[in-house]
């Protein structure tokens, strides 16, 4: 519990470090914070053209929402995915990037990856607001989506814990082996296409069924991001509640990875100042 008290005590520092990330980001760029909107929007346009138009991906209309728009459906998967992938690449670099600080001042080092993930949470929320605006324009009713925001925000919390825990592990691993960042770059691509972001999961289900290989689906679903993205999409695109098993599954992953990350980080943190 020592760990937790220290973290609670340093919440003010966490706020300050997060503000540093937010303020330092996009400094000296003309468009500034607009970039954090242009980025997902450009991805949305690209994927819509490639997968929606050229490949002609068939997606079902939203169950309760009546939404029938590939861009919105895509954004519902892209936003949580981008948050996790950016959190992980960012968090991994924080420890090395702040070597000067770590060697000279003591503070709970976990705060570095945490503050980065929190700063991306802010972007995530802004992007969600944009998504909401799209839904309001294209959807049948604006009011209908509002109740689903509450569970969606809870899912953001769960995703944050997941990304922070994994980010801690990657950050400390990267200090000891600088290969981790390059290896991660490759794995991230693989991970992206193993997660139903640009295609519906029914594609994989159909493939597994038609080839009579249900194990394929089991392997596929071992990736927790399948569930995170699935729930986020069902909340905001279909306006349906996730089942109890899905909810528990996500909860266990989030808490498990967060605790594991904290434990591993604490374990190897002692020699950070020397190894950097």
């Amino acid at each position, binding site marked *: 519990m020592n760990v937790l008290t220290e973290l609670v005590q340093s919440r*003010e*520092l966490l*706020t*300050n*470090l997060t*503000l*540093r990330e937010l*303020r*330092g980001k996009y*400094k*000296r760029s003309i468009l500034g914070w607009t970039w954090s909107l242009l980025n997902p929007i450009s991805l949305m346009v690209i994927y819509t053209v490639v997968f929606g138009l050229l490949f002609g991906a068939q997606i079902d209309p939203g169950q309760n929402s009546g939404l029938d728009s590939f861009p919105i459906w895509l954004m519902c998967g892209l936003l949580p995915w981008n948050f996790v992938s950016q959190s992980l690449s960012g968090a991994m670099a924080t420890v090395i990037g*702040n070597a*000067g*600080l*770590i*060697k*000279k*001042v*003591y*503070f709970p080092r976990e705060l570095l990856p945490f503050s980065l993930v929190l700063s991306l949470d802010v972007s995530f929320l802004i992007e969600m607001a944009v998504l909401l605006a799209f839904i309001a324009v294209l959807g049948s009713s604006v009011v209908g989506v509002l109740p689903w925001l509450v569970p969606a925000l809870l899912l953001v919390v769960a995703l944050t814990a997941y990304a922070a825990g994994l980010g801690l592990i990657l950050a400390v691993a990267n200090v*000891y*082996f*600088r*290969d*981790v960042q390059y*290896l991660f770059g490759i794995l991230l691509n693989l991970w992206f296409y193993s997660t139903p972001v640009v295609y519906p999961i029914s594609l994989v289900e159909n493939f597994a069924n038609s080839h009579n290989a249900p194990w394929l689906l089991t392997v596929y679903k071992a990736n927790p991001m399948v569930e995170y993205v699935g729930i986020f999409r069902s909340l905001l695109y279909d306006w349906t509640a996730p089942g109890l098993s899905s909810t528990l599954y996500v909860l266990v992953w989030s808490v498990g990875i967060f605790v594991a990350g904290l434990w591993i980080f604490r374990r190897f943190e*002692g*020699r950070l*100042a*020397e190894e950097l």
Partner: protein
Amino acid sequence: MDQHRSDGSSGGSGPNAPAPRAARTATNAITVRNVSKKFRLYNDRNQSLKATLSRGRRARYEDFQALQDVSLDIEQGTTYGLIGENGSGKSTLLKCMARILRPEQGSIEVVGKVSALLELGAGFHPELSGRENVFLNAAILGLSGKEVTRRFDEIVEFAGLEQFIDSPVKNYSSGMYVRLGFSVAINVDPDVLLVDEVLAVGDEQFQRRCNEKFSEMRDKGKTIVVVSHGMSAMRTICDQVAWLEHGVLQKVGDAGEVIDEYIAQVQTDRQEVAEDETGARWGSGEAVIDHVEIVDRDNRPTTRLQTGDAVTVRIHFDARETVERPVFGFAVFTLEGLLVTGPNTREAGVECARIDGRGVVELTIDRMLLLPGTYDISVSLYDHAITHPYDFRQKVLRFDVEAGTPHETFGGVVSLDGRWAVTAADRSPARSGNTEP
């Protein structure tokens, strides 16, 4: 371990005797118990997975014992110095106290809020303004937002940066940067302040204010731990001093006593080193320099001269084979390694057709104008092109110069033996020639 307990009346504080301390309890601010710390010195720092997998483990390393079984008690309200040569582990110990490094064995207990002045302005974000960085840096050092707001003006004023506080710190000069960093760190109001060689910061005015701030903290009964090489400063600032050598605690006690002992020890070490260095020698050896001597006006060998003396340097050589057109060189160095002069026979237009067997070269100096100090002589025997050394002997002879005439006490290495003339307004010159008879 030999420990002295000083309460209130600290020894060795000289003229700057500390102001009376706030009532001091005999509790420890910092308790260091049996602390050992090893560093890994990597022979081949290859941090790649491939290298690790092919070796079957991470890079090969040797352990370097930076601290060995160190125990210290630092009482609340003392100003405590850590002294020792480079690599003695004093900075490592300070970093362990600051929790930046974690010792393998032993424990360090610190009571109260700690602020470490290890590097000023660590954690400043270059793109952010001074104002934003003050809040950030103070938070890193453990100050709450409310407290920073309350002390903000004081911090900025202390750093003298009122005008620049809203520009990004990347536009600050290094002095401004460090001043702001110091100002934040000192205004965090720590119970324990750890300082590593950062006392010499900024201009004279800022230095004075830093010292005032230090004594203010000491008066308030705060504990300060200082690492420094500046022994005279340590003597005035510190009550107690711990002397470390190769990670082992040598002595703990009153600042004056320990520092005296430390200086005595270090100086004997240095003399031994100097003797080792004497006699560095290289060359092909067809002809060699046997020895060098300085003789005074009465032809008596000496190593103790006075400024202005007439002296002769004699270089005794032995040419085992015939050497054509040799060039003899002679050089005088200060102990710090500054070359004072380095004449040779070729440049002086002195030709010697060949040498064979033993002989002597003399350099006669009518007025030796070195100022008081200790000097080393190096001599050389080269071929005519001065490319091939037959014999080169570094620091072959050491001699002392005492005050003579010209008499100068301002310092320096050599007298220019000039003459002064002061012309008064009535244009009757009052001359003072040099006083040499």
